[in-house]
């Protein structure tokens, strides 16, 4: 049973600044949230304009951005300026303010999810904003607000392609949220808690040793079947190949974001990437031991970063190789396959845990 005895990031800040009481809590929370939020946004900033291009290029035998700055890294500000400087086209007949809110809801929901993610230690700092008892439930709740944003965008755009994209997004999220959460429940049964730090804490023991190398009790190793299920449902949840059907550029142009340009488009783009990273973070917390890894605990954050970037890489890899499934096939896989399997997994885990405990 992990406990919340470790000092959280906001408390650390208020203590360092020497601010006591409510003011300290508020300032600590705000500063900490700003730091974490900026870290995540910095990731997406690197991922969107640069890393994604480089990764895709590597898979397709191309060179990609290399002109602006070292390794083309300055393409990041260049792209940002370019995207933001474009005209914001507001089509006739859009349903405002729904249309304006949708691009804000998406990144906001994904960013909120990071509030309860234990991102590990960097030196003396424990990068976790909050650690409520129901952390895992909270993170899923935040993450699924994203689909509301997609429906809003799809419905408000007054565009048939957007509409189809929005509807697809709902159908897909309904079909995959349940297996996702049910599979996560099996982890909760193992760990005996919903608290994210405690789930990570339960994955630090040694499962078995092979040739002097300790395999930790990451739930990915304890229950690889659940891991694969979770990974698949997660891909669908964040809408990446082979489940990128809400966007499906060759079928419905760009789905729910067809009518968005300039800053709104950037927000959507950002939101999607934050969502990928949040998906990676959830995966890391529930199945990959959070911030744990070889070396001292004080570099745990680096391991955490490596894990979520690893997940990002995986999404891009899948994208280079896998075809997109059709909407009816997707629903079928979701309801007839994943749901059944995830419940089977849950029951089995419960029985096994019950017998052992």
């Amino acid at each position, binding site marked *: 049973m992990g406990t919340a005895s470790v000092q959280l990031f906001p408390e650390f800040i208020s203590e360092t600044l020497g601010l006591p009481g409510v003011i300290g809590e508020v300032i600590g929370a705000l500063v900490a949230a700003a730091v974490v939020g900026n870290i995540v946004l910095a990731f997406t900033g690197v991922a969107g304009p640069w890393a994604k291009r480089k*990764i895709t*290029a*590597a*898979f*397709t*035998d*191309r*060179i990609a951005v*290399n002109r602006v700055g070292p390794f083309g890294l300055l393409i990041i500000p260049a792209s940002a300026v370019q995207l933001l400087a474009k005209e914001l086209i507001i089509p006739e007949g859009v349903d405002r303010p729904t249309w304006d809110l949708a691009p804000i809801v998406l990144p906001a929901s994904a960013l909120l999810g990071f509030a309860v993610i234990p991102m590990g230690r960097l030196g003396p700092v424990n990068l976790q904003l909050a650690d409520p008892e129901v952390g895992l439930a909270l993170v899923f709740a935040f993450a699924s607000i994203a689909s509301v944003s997609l429906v809003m965008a799809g419905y408000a755009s007054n565009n048939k392609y957007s509409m189809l994209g929005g509807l697809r997004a709902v159908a897909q999220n309904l079909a995959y949220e349940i297996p996702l959460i049910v599979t996560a429940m099996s982890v909760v049964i193992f760990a005996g808690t919903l608290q994210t730090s405690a789930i990570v804490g339960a994955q630090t023991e040694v499962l078995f040793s092979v040739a002097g190398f300790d395999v930790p009790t990451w739930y990915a190793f304890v229950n690889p079947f659940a891991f694969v299920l979770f990974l698949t449902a997660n891909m669908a949840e964040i809408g990446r190949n082979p489940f990128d059907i809400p966007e499906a550029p060759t079928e419905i142009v760009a789905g729910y974001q067809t009518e968005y340009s300039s800053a709104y488009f950037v927000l959507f783009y950002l939101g999607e990437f934050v969502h990928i990273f949040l998906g990676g973070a959830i995966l890391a917390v529930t199945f990959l031991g959070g911030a744990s890894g070889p070396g001292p605990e004080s570099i745990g954050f680096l391991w955490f970063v490596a894990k979520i970037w690893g997940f990002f890489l995986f999404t891009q*890899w*899948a994208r*280079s*190789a*896998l075809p997109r499934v059709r909407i009816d096939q997707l629903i079928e896989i979701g309801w007839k396959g994943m749901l059944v399997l995830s419940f089977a997994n849950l029951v089995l885990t419960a029985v096994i845990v019950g017998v052992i405990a």
Partner: protein
Amino acid sequence: MIGLMKSMATTMKHALDGSTFTVEYPEDAPDVSPRFRGVHKFSQERCIWCRQCENVCPNDTIQIVQDDKRNGEQYNLHIGQCIYCRLCEEVCPVDAILLTQNFEFTADTKDDFVYNKEQLKNVPWYKGIDPLESRNPDRGAWIGEGDGEVDYQ
């Protein structure tokens, strides 16, 4: 599942071998075949103003203006309209018009692509390749020209 694995393994193999097939264009200009057909180069010294190129051109890209004694005055060629079929070079009896390997040309408006004889003369060789020399072994395009009516002008 095995098929999915195979697909993903294939792309990963390509990602890891590090080879690229695109090139960094202006620094790494591609080699073109000696037969490649780019912008025209015109030589007034060689031209005998027979107007065969103007005649054979499939889409009226070449315009020749002569004075009343049939001396050449203007030789205009719209390189933006040209379809690079090389028929003008083929018919030219004196190699006055050649298609260089040069494919790099720009202009601000479509009209700027109408080259007069001076501009055509100043078209540079691509990488210093003279098409006359480079195509020398295969310049026999008109071999087998038949006994039929020959329609000069």
